[in-house]
């Protein structure tokens, strides 16, 4: 599991897409934090501290699905279509493959988010642990969804298209459901990670549990696949 995890983790850094996304995240983070420093006199202290991380939070919540999908939409099905998966599946359990891949992606995003918050800490003079937790809770769900799509759809081109559509539609749909007063649809808010991210506080931990649930579903689906 850890061998696959670190292989995936290292592999993500080699892609040009990863470098572009890291550059965007760092750029927006630095620019937002710098802007907050300029405007801090006009903001109260609390808002100022939160505001430093608003750049990362915006990117994660609005573009998180899109970034993850663009980098890892084919994390499983690429290996299935090229049949490199056959070497993996004859050496370790399918559960280890799915969880290993998940952890590899998770570590990559943790590294990006953590480094962004370190960058913010240089400017804000405070390390925002809770902000990392909120972002990673949300990202954990997004990665798990991405993994499921890659297991369900056998062709990488399909996951690429579906991932982009999902990344654009899902946030909009989620916010509509969350803020809807229509009782027939508002109960669906419990199925979107945005709801728990918006609730904040310890509700963000529900996203981690949510992610584990989706991941386990992925393991079950992958166990049934012929490779």
């Amino acid at each position, binding site marked *: 599991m850890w*061998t*696959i995890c670190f*292989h995936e983790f290292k592999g993500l850094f*080699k892609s040009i897409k990863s470098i572009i996304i890291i550059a965007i995240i760092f750029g927006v983070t630095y620019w937002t934090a710098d802007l907050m420093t300029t405007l801090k006199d006009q903001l109260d202290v609390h808002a100022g501290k939160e505001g430093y991380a608003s750049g990362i939070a915006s990117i994660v919540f609005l573009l998180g699905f899109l970034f993850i999908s663009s980098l890892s939409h084919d994390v499983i099905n690429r290996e299935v279509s*090229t*049949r*490199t998966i*056959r*070497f*993996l*599946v*004859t*050496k*370790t*359990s*399918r559960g280890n493959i799915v969880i290993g891949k998940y952890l590899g992606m998770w570590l990559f995003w943790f590294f990006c988010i953590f480094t962004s918050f370190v960058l913010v800490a240089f400017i804000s003079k405070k390390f925002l642990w809770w902000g990392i937790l909120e972002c990673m809770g949300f990202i954990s769900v997004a990665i798990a969804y991405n993994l499921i799509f890659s297991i369900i759809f056998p062709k990488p081109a399909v996951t690429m298209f579906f991932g982009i559509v999902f990344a654009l539609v899902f946030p909009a749909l989620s916010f509509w459901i969350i803020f809807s007063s229509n009782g027939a649809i508002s109960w669906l808010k419990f199925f979107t990670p945005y709801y728990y991210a918006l609730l904040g506080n310890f509700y963000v931990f529900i996203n981690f549990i949510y992610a584990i649930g989706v991941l386990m579903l992925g393991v079950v689906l992958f166990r*049934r696949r*012929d*490779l």
Partner: protein
Amino acid sequence: MNVIEATGITKMYGPKTVVDNVNLKVKKGEIYGFLGRNGAGKSTFINIMTGIIQPTSGSFKLLDEPNLNNVKHRIGVLPDYSTFYDSLTAIDHLKYYAKLSGYKASTEHCESVLKRVGLLEHAHKKAGKFSFGMKKKLGIAQAIIHNPELIFLDEPTSGIDAESALHIQQLIVNLQKEGKTVFMTSHNLHEVEKLCTRIAIMKNGRIWNEGTLEELKSRYMSSIHVEIKHSPIPQKEGLFTFLKTAGRDITITETKTSLVVDAEENIPPIIRAFTGHEIDIYRVNVHEPSLEEIFLNDNLDASAP
């Protein structure tokens, strides 16, 4: 000890049965050959045994263990149609796959395995630049990198040059000498005949025939062709009368006689009859069927209505 024990393995894709109720036992230390035409179900069976695909029904034990995940580190697999990561070198692949099997392979160990498969000079070359044959060799290397007890090889010599194929065949023999069990498929009948201690012939998803080469031969060839080269026969009639009782399809020329007998036991009396007639025997050729003949015969029989 049986290292492979498959019971009632069946694989269906929709209404089509690809592997049909296959029962199989392979003993430790054997080189077991799986023969069959394209689409006979050989690779599907190997893929089921190695966890690549799931059987529709049936069960199997590898190395006396019913849970495949518990023995994956003790088996090595060269699957059919598999590729490698283009950006990794041969050594990188071997280290990665060994680690996945819970085996920490040093660079020296990886190089020694690459040497065994004849790929040492390409150890640091990226797999993306490998030819089909080189990929095949790397596939064999990754199957043995973690020193497994049971090795599945799906067509290990297909697509590689004759010299490399001989090298791989010798490697398979050496693996057996090291006490490992090899389960292999091949389209090369001479290769199977040369290497395998037991052979199964698969047809339409079923094992049509199974046994040692001698067993297959004795099962399939009730006729033995005997050709005798001898000194000129002074009186053909007496000898011919005897030969008619010992065999059939008799052809006698001045210095050569050929006939077909039903069993090996019928050959010594024939020789004695020749010498009894004071005929010198220069050479006796007994034509045994090759695996190719058995295989073709098998398929002809199988395709008969």
